[in-house]
Protein backbone atom coordinates (compact mmCIF):
# COMPACT_ATOMS: atom_id res chain seq x y z
CA UNK A 1 0.00 0.00 0.00
CA UNK A 2 1.41 3.41 -0.94
CA UNK A 3 2.41 5.91 1.76
CA UNK A 4 0.01 8.52 0.36
CA UNK A 5 -2.87 6.07 0.58
CA UNK A 6 -2.01 5.15 4.19
CA UNK A 7 -1.82 8.88 5.05
CA UNK A 8 -5.19 9.59 3.42
CA UNK A 9 -6.95 6.74 5.26
CA UNK A 10 -5.24 7.73 8.53
CA UNK A 11 -6.24 11.39 8.19
CA UNK A 12 -9.80 10.52 7.19
CA UNK A 13 -10.12 8.08 10.13
CA UNK A 14 -8.94 10.72 12.58
CA UNK A 15 -11.31 13.30 11.09
CA UNK A 16 -14.16 10.77 11.29
CA UNK A 17 -13.45 10.01 14.96
CA UNK A 18 -13.11 13.71 15.76
CA UNK A 19 -16.40 14.50 14.05
CA UNK A 20 -18.30 11.76 15.88
CA UNK A 21 -16.81 12.60 19.27
CA UNK A 22 -17.39 16.36 18.85
CA UNK A 23 -20.97 15.80 17.67
CA UNK A 24 -21.76 13.47 20.53
CA UNK A 25 -20.17 15.76 23.11
CA UNK A 26 -22.59 18.46 21.87
CA UNK A 27 -25.43 15.98 22.42
CA UNK A 28 -24.23 15.36 25.99
CA UNK A 29 -24.01 19.13 26.51
CA UNK A 30 -27.62 19.46 25.34
CA UNK A 31 -28.67 16.87 27.93
CA UNK A 32 -26.73 18.65 30.69
CA UNK A 33 -28.25 22.01 29.68
CA UNK A 34 -31.75 20.58 29.97
CA UNK A 35 -30.95 19.03 33.36
CA UNK A 36 -29.51 22.37 34.47
CA UNK A 37 -32.72 24.21 33.52
CA UNK A 38 -34.90 21.52 35.10
CA UNK A 39 -32.96 21.69 38.36
CA UNK A 40 -33.28 25.51 38.23
CA UNK A 41 -37.04 25.14 37.77
CA UNK A 42 -37.10 22.69 40.67
CA UNK A 43 -35.31 25.28 42.79
CA UNK A 44 -37.81 27.98 41.69
CA UNK A 45 -40.71 25.74 42.78
CA UNK A 46 -39.04 24.89 46.10
CA UNK A 47 -38.22 28.53 46.85
CA UNK A 48 -41.77 29.65 46.26
CA UNK A 49 -44.15 29.75 49.21
CA UNK A 50 -47.04 27.36 49.79
CA UNK A 51 -45.03 24.13 50.06
CA UNK A 52 -48.07 22.09 51.02
CA UNK A 53 -49.86 22.86 47.76
CA UNK A 54 -50.48 19.50 45.97
CA UNK A 55 -50.06 21.19 42.59
CA UNK A 56 -46.48 22.11 43.51
CA UNK A 57 -45.73 18.55 44.66
CA UNK A 58 -47.08 17.26 41.37
CA UNK A 59 -44.89 19.78 39.52
CA UNK A 60 -41.82 18.57 41.44
CA UNK A 61 -42.67 14.97 40.55
CA UNK A 62 -43.02 15.95 36.87
CA UNK A 63 -39.61 17.67 36.93
CA UNK A 64 -37.98 14.63 38.58
CA UNK A 65 -39.41 12.41 35.82
CA UNK A 66 -38.00 14.73 33.14
CA UNK A 67 -34.58 14.77 34.83
CA UNK A 68 -34.57 10.94 34.95
CA UNK A 69 -35.43 10.69 31.25
CA UNK A 70 -32.64 13.16 30.36
CA UNK A 71 -30.17 11.17 32.48
CA UNK A 72 -31.21 8.01 30.57
CA UNK A 73 -30.72 9.89 27.28
CA UNK A 74 -27.26 11.05 28.44
CA UNK A 75 -26.31 7.53 29.55
CA UNK A 76 -27.24 6.11 26.15
CA UNK A 77 -25.11 8.73 24.36
CA UNK A 78 -22.11 8.14 26.62
CA UNK A 79 -22.43 4.32 26.34
CA UNK A 80 -22.45 4.55 22.54
CA UNK A 81 -19.56 7.04 22.55
CA UNK A 82 -17.57 4.70 24.77
CA UNK A 83 -18.18 1.65 22.54
CA UNK A 84 -17.35 3.76 19.50
CA UNK A 85 -14.07 4.98 21.07
CA UNK A 86 -13.14 1.37 21.94
CA UNK A 87 -13.73 0.29 18.34
CA UNK A 88 -10.39 1.97 17.59
CA UNK A 89 -8.54 -0.20 20.16
CA UNK A 90 -7.40 -2.77 17.60
CA UNK A 91 -7.44 -2.66 13.80
CA UNK A 92 -8.94 -6.15 13.70
CA UNK A 93 -11.55 -7.62 16.03
CA UNK A 94 -14.54 -9.90 16.09
CA UNK A 95 -17.69 -7.81 16.48
CA UNK A 96 -21.45 -8.05 16.25
CA UNK A 97 -22.37 -6.38 12.96
CA UNK A 98 -25.95 -5.73 14.06
CA UNK A 99 -24.80 -3.89 17.20
CA UNK A 100 -22.19 -1.98 15.23
CA UNK A 101 -24.67 -0.76 12.61
CA UNK A 102 -27.19 0.18 15.30
CA UNK A 103 -24.48 2.18 17.04
CA UNK A 104 -23.21 4.13 14.02
CA UNK A 105 -26.81 4.91 13.02
CA UNK A 106 -27.47 6.18 16.55
CA UNK A 107 -24.30 8.31 16.44
CA UNK A 108 -25.18 9.70 13.00
CA UNK A 109 -28.72 10.71 14.05
CA UNK A 110 -27.50 14.15 15.10
CA UNK A 111 -26.50 14.98 11.49
CA UNK A 112 -29.73 13.51 10.15
CA UNK A 113 -31.76 15.59 12.60
CA UNK A 114 -29.91 18.76 11.60
CA UNK A 115 -30.91 18.02 7.99
CA UNK A 116 -34.44 17.04 9.05
CA UNK A 117 -34.04 13.52 7.71
CA UNK A 118 -35.25 10.36 9.45
CA UNK A 119 -32.38 7.89 9.76
CA UNK A 120 -33.22 4.33 10.76
CA UNK A 121 -31.50 0.96 11.02
CA UNK A 122 -33.39 -1.98 9.56
CA UNK A 123 -31.76 -5.00 11.14
CA UNK A 124 -32.53 -8.72 11.40
CA UNK A 125 -33.37 -10.26 14.78
CA UNK A 126 -30.30 -12.48 15.02
CA UNK A 127 -26.80 -11.12 15.58
CA UNK A 128 -23.89 -11.96 13.31
CA UNK A 129 -20.21 -11.92 14.20
CA UNK A 130 -17.70 -10.55 11.69
CA UNK A 131 -13.92 -10.53 12.01
CA UNK A 132 -12.78 -7.27 10.46
CA UNK A 133 -11.95 -3.66 11.30
CA UNK A 134 -14.85 -2.21 13.36
CA UNK A 135 -13.68 1.41 13.05
CA UNK A 136 -13.22 1.08 9.28
CA UNK A 137 -16.67 -0.42 8.84
CA UNK A 138 -18.31 2.35 10.88
CA UNK A 139 -16.34 4.91 8.87
CA UNK A 140 -17.55 3.39 5.57
CA UNK A 141 -21.17 3.39 6.75
CA UNK A 142 -20.88 6.97 8.02
CA UNK A 143 -19.45 8.17 4.70
CA UNK A 144 -22.43 6.56 2.90
CA UNK A 145 -24.86 8.16 5.38
CA UNK A 146 -23.23 11.58 4.89
CA UNK A 147 -23.47 11.24 1.10
CA UNK A 148 -27.12 10.18 1.39
CA UNK A 149 -27.84 13.09 3.75
CA UNK A 150 -26.27 15.55 1.30
CA UNK A 151 -28.63 14.14 -1.35
CA UNK A 152 -31.78 13.96 0.78
CA UNK A 153 -34.56 16.48 0.80
CA UNK A 154 -36.46 17.68 3.86
CA UNK A 155 -38.30 15.11 6.02
CA UNK A 156 -37.22 12.09 3.94
CA UNK A 157 -35.99 8.74 5.19
CA UNK A 158 -32.64 6.96 4.98
CA UNK A 159 -32.37 3.32 6.02
CA UNK A 160 -29.21 1.37 6.86
CA UNK A 161 -29.29 -2.42 6.87
CA UNK A 162 -27.34 -5.52 6.05
CA UNK A 163 -27.83 -8.97 4.59
CA UNK A 164 -25.65 -12.04 4.99
CA UNK A 165 -24.23 -13.14 1.66
CA UNK A 166 -21.77 -15.83 0.70
CA UNK A 167 -18.54 -15.21 2.62
CA UNK A 168 -19.60 -12.04 4.40
CA UNK A 169 -22.18 -9.29 4.65
CA UNK A 170 -23.59 -6.73 2.28
CA UNK A 171 -24.20 -3.37 3.92
CA UNK A 172 -26.78 -1.18 2.22
CA UNK A 173 -27.75 2.46 2.69
CA UNK A 174 -31.05 3.30 1.00
CA UNK A 175 -32.51 6.72 0.53
CA UNK A 176 -35.94 7.91 -0.54
CA UNK A 177 -34.11 10.40 -2.77
CA UNK A 178 -31.62 9.49 -5.52
CA UNK A 179 -27.97 9.95 -4.58
CA UNK A 180 -26.74 13.17 -6.07
CA UNK A 181 -23.51 13.25 -8.02
CA UNK A 182 -22.11 16.69 -7.34
CA UNK A 183 -18.65 17.85 -6.17
CA UNK A 184 -19.63 17.84 -2.47
CA UNK A 185 -21.05 14.30 -2.57
CA UNK A 186 -18.21 13.05 -4.78
CA UNK A 187 -15.64 14.49 -2.34
CA UNK A 188 -17.32 12.69 0.58
CA UNK A 189 -17.46 9.44 -1.39
CA UNK A 190 -13.92 9.63 -2.73
CA UNK A 191 -12.50 7.97 0.40
CA UNK A 192 -15.05 5.12 0.33
CA UNK A 193 -13.21 2.80 -2.12
CA UNK A 194 -10.03 3.16 -0.03
CA UNK A 195 -11.79 2.24 3.23
CA UNK A 196 -13.68 -0.66 1.66
CA UNK A 197 -10.53 -1.98 0.09
CA UNK A 198 -8.88 -1.85 3.54
CA UNK A 199 -11.78 -3.95 4.84
CA UNK A 200 -11.08 -6.47 2.07
CA UNK A 201 -14.47 -5.66 0.58
CA UNK A 202 -15.94 -4.35 -2.65
CA UNK A 203 -18.35 -1.64 -3.64
CA UNK A 204 -21.58 -3.19 -4.92
CA UNK A 205 -23.78 -0.25 -5.87
CA UNK A 206 -22.49 3.24 -6.42
CA UNK A 207 -22.27 3.84 -10.14
CA UNK A 208 -25.81 2.81 -11.05
CA UNK A 209 -26.36 6.07 -12.87
CA UNK A 210 -28.07 9.30 -11.85
CA UNK A 211 -31.09 7.62 -10.26
CA UNK A 212 -29.34 5.37 -7.75
CA UNK A 213 -31.16 5.33 -4.40
CA UNK A 214 -28.77 2.86 -2.82
CA UNK A 215 -25.15 2.66 -1.74
CA UNK A 216 -23.96 -0.86 -0.93
CA UNK A 217 -20.74 -2.68 -0.27
CA UNK A 218 -19.61 -6.17 0.62
CA UNK A 219 -17.24 -6.99 3.47
CA UNK A 220 -15.81 -10.44 4.13
CA UNK A 221 -16.71 -12.35 7.28
CA UNK A 222 -13.06 -12.97 8.17
CA UNK A 223 -10.26 -10.54 7.49
CA UNK A 224 -6.52 -10.53 8.21
CA UNK A 225 -5.92 -13.81 10.00
CA UNK A 226 -8.66 -13.71 12.62
CA UNK A 227 -11.94 -15.54 12.38
CA UNK A 228 -15.47 -14.66 13.43
CA UNK A 229 -15.42 -17.94 15.38
CA UNK A 230 -12.90 -16.32 17.72
CA UNK A 231 -15.63 -15.26 20.13
CA UNK A 232 -13.15 -14.38 22.88
CA UNK A 233 -12.38 -11.14 21.05
CA UNK A 234 -15.90 -9.96 20.35
CA UNK A 235 -16.27 -6.19 20.73
CA UNK A 236 -19.31 -4.31 21.86
CA UNK A 237 -21.75 -7.16 22.16
Amino acid sequence: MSEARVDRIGQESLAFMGKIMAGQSHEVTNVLNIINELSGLQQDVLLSADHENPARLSKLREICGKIQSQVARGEKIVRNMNLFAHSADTPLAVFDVKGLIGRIVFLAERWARLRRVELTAKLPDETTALANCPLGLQHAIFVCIEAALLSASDKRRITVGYALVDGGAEIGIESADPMLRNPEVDTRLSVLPLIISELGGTLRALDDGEESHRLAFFIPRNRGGISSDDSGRIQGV
Partner: protein
Amino acid sequence: MLSDKVLLIDDEVEFIETLAERLRARGLEIDVATDGEQGIERAKAKSYDAIILDFAMPGMDGIETLKGLLAQNPAVQVMLLTGQATIQTAAKATKLGAVDVLEKPTDVETLMEKIHEARERHVALKTQQSQEQVEDILRRRGW
Protein backbone atom coordinates in the same frame (compact mmCIF):
# COMPACT_ATOMS: atom_id res chain seq x y z
CA MET B 1 -45.79 48.18 33.59
CA LEU B 2 -45.71 46.13 30.39
CA SER B 3 -43.70 42.91 30.57
CA ASP B 4 -40.72 42.28 28.32
CA LYS B 5 -41.67 40.31 25.22
CA VAL B 6 -39.14 37.63 24.40
CA LEU B 7 -38.94 35.01 21.66
CA LEU B 8 -36.89 31.85 22.32
CA ILE B 9 -35.72 29.88 19.28
CA ASP B 10 -34.18 26.46 19.97
CA ASP B 11 -34.79 22.96 18.61
CA GLU B 12 -34.34 21.28 22.02
CA VAL B 13 -38.02 21.32 22.99
CA GLU B 14 -37.54 20.33 26.62
CA PHE B 15 -34.82 22.95 27.12
CA ILE B 16 -36.81 25.77 25.56
CA GLU B 17 -40.05 24.89 27.37
CA THR B 18 -38.31 24.74 30.75
CA LEU B 19 -36.46 28.01 30.18
CA ALA B 20 -39.72 29.61 28.98
CA GLU B 21 -41.48 28.46 32.15
CA ARG B 22 -38.74 29.93 34.36
CA LEU B 23 -38.76 33.26 32.51
CA ARG B 24 -42.58 33.46 32.58
CA ALA B 25 -42.43 32.90 36.35
CA ARG B 26 -40.26 36.04 36.46
CA GLY B 27 -42.91 38.10 34.72
CA LEU B 28 -41.76 37.97 31.09
CA GLU B 29 -44.03 37.34 28.11
CA ILE B 30 -42.42 34.40 26.30
CA ASP B 31 -43.09 32.83 22.91
CA VAL B 32 -41.15 29.85 21.59
CA ALA B 33 -40.15 28.57 18.16
CA THR B 34 -38.41 25.27 17.49
CA ASP B 35 -36.65 26.23 14.27
CA GLY B 36 -35.36 29.27 12.43
CA GLU B 37 -38.19 29.52 9.88
CA GLN B 38 -40.83 29.42 12.63
CA GLY B 39 -38.85 32.03 14.60
CA ILE B 40 -38.73 34.42 11.64
CA GLU B 41 -42.49 33.97 11.12
CA ARG B 42 -43.18 34.72 14.79
CA ALA B 43 -40.97 37.82 14.68
CA LYS B 44 -42.80 39.00 11.54
CA ALA B 45 -46.16 38.80 13.29
CA LYS B 46 -45.12 40.33 16.62
CA SER B 47 -42.58 42.81 17.93
CA TYR B 48 -40.18 41.39 20.55
CA ASP B 49 -37.91 43.24 22.95
CA ALA B 50 -35.38 40.44 22.68
CA ILE B 51 -34.90 37.25 20.71
CA ILE B 52 -32.78 34.45 22.14
CA LEU B 53 -31.47 32.13 19.49
CA ASP B 54 -29.69 28.77 19.47
CA PHE B 55 -26.86 28.16 17.00
CA ALA B 56 -27.11 24.53 15.80
CA MET B 57 -30.65 23.83 14.59
CA PRO B 58 -32.25 21.71 11.88
CA GLY B 59 -32.91 23.63 8.68
CA MET B 60 -31.74 27.21 9.08
CA ASP B 61 -28.90 27.44 11.61
CA GLY B 62 -28.48 30.29 14.08
CA ILE B 63 -26.44 32.46 11.71
CA GLU B 64 -28.96 32.10 8.85
CA THR B 65 -31.82 32.80 11.24
CA LEU B 66 -30.01 35.85 12.61
CA LYS B 67 -29.60 37.19 9.06
CA GLY B 68 -33.30 36.58 8.36
CA LEU B 69 -34.43 38.30 11.56
CA LEU B 70 -32.24 41.36 10.97
CA ALA B 71 -33.27 41.60 7.30
CA GLN B 72 -36.88 41.73 8.49
CA ASN B 73 -36.26 44.24 11.27
CA PRO B 74 -32.81 45.84 11.72
CA ALA B 75 -33.76 47.09 15.21
CA VAL B 76 -34.41 43.59 16.58
CA GLN B 77 -32.23 42.62 19.56
CA VAL B 78 -30.94 39.11 18.97
CA MET B 79 -28.78 37.18 21.43
CA LEU B 80 -27.18 33.85 20.60
CA LEU B 81 -27.47 31.32 23.42
CA THR B 82 -25.47 28.26 22.51
CA GLY B 83 -23.56 25.34 23.90
CA GLN B 84 -21.36 25.29 20.82
CA ALA B 85 -19.98 28.79 20.58
CA THR B 86 -16.51 29.18 19.15
CA ILE B 87 -14.65 32.49 18.96
CA GLN B 88 -15.26 32.46 15.19
CA THR B 89 -19.01 31.90 15.61
CA ALA B 90 -19.26 34.60 18.26
CA ALA B 91 -17.29 37.06 16.10
CA LYS B 92 -19.39 36.27 13.03
CA ALA B 93 -22.67 36.65 14.94
CA THR B 94 -21.58 39.94 16.51
CA LYS B 95 -20.37 41.26 13.17
CA LEU B 96 -23.74 40.40 11.62
CA GLY B 97 -25.56 42.32 14.37
CA ALA B 98 -26.18 39.98 17.32
CA VAL B 99 -26.14 42.05 20.51
CA ASP B 100 -24.68 39.28 22.64
CA VAL B 101 -23.38 35.72 22.47
CA LEU B 102 -24.08 33.75 25.63
CA GLU B 103 -22.80 30.31 26.45
CA LYS B 104 -25.08 27.58 27.80
CA PRO B 105 -25.60 27.03 30.63
CA THR B 106 -26.38 30.64 31.54
CA ASP B 107 -27.75 31.56 34.93
CA VAL B 108 -31.39 32.66 34.56
CA GLU B 109 -30.79 35.90 36.50
CA THR B 110 -27.93 36.82 34.13
CA LEU B 111 -30.26 36.11 31.23
CA MET B 112 -32.91 38.37 32.81
CA GLU B 113 -30.37 41.20 33.03
CA LYS B 114 -29.38 40.71 29.39
CA ILE B 115 -33.06 40.74 28.37
CA HIS B 116 -33.71 43.99 30.27
CA GLU B 117 -30.65 45.57 28.65
CA ALA B 118 -31.89 44.43 25.24
CA ARG B 119 -35.32 45.91 25.96
CA GLU B 120 -33.80 49.28 26.88
CA ARG B 121 -31.79 49.30 23.65
CA HIS B 122 -34.87 48.23 21.68
CA VAL B 123 -37.01 51.02 23.21
CA ALA B 124 -34.24 53.58 22.56
CA LEU B 125 -33.92 52.45 18.94
CA LYS B 126 -37.70 52.52 18.38
CA THR B 127 -37.91 55.99 19.94
CA GLN B 128 -35.09 57.18 17.70
CA GLN B 129 -36.79 55.64 14.63
CA SER B 130 -40.12 57.30 15.53
CA GLN B 131 -38.38 60.66 16.05
CA GLU B 132 -36.65 60.36 12.68
CA GLN B 133 -39.95 59.50 10.99
CA VAL B 134 -41.67 62.52 12.56
CA GLU B 135 -38.77 64.78 11.56
CA ASP B 136 -38.93 63.38 8.03
CA ILE B 137 -42.67 64.05 7.78
CA LEU B 138 -42.21 67.57 9.10
CA ARG B 139 -39.33 68.21 6.69
CA ARG B 140 -41.36 66.96 3.71
CA ARG B 141 -44.21 69.27 4.68
CA GLY B 142 -41.75 72.15 4.95
CA TRP B 143 -42.44 72.79 8.64
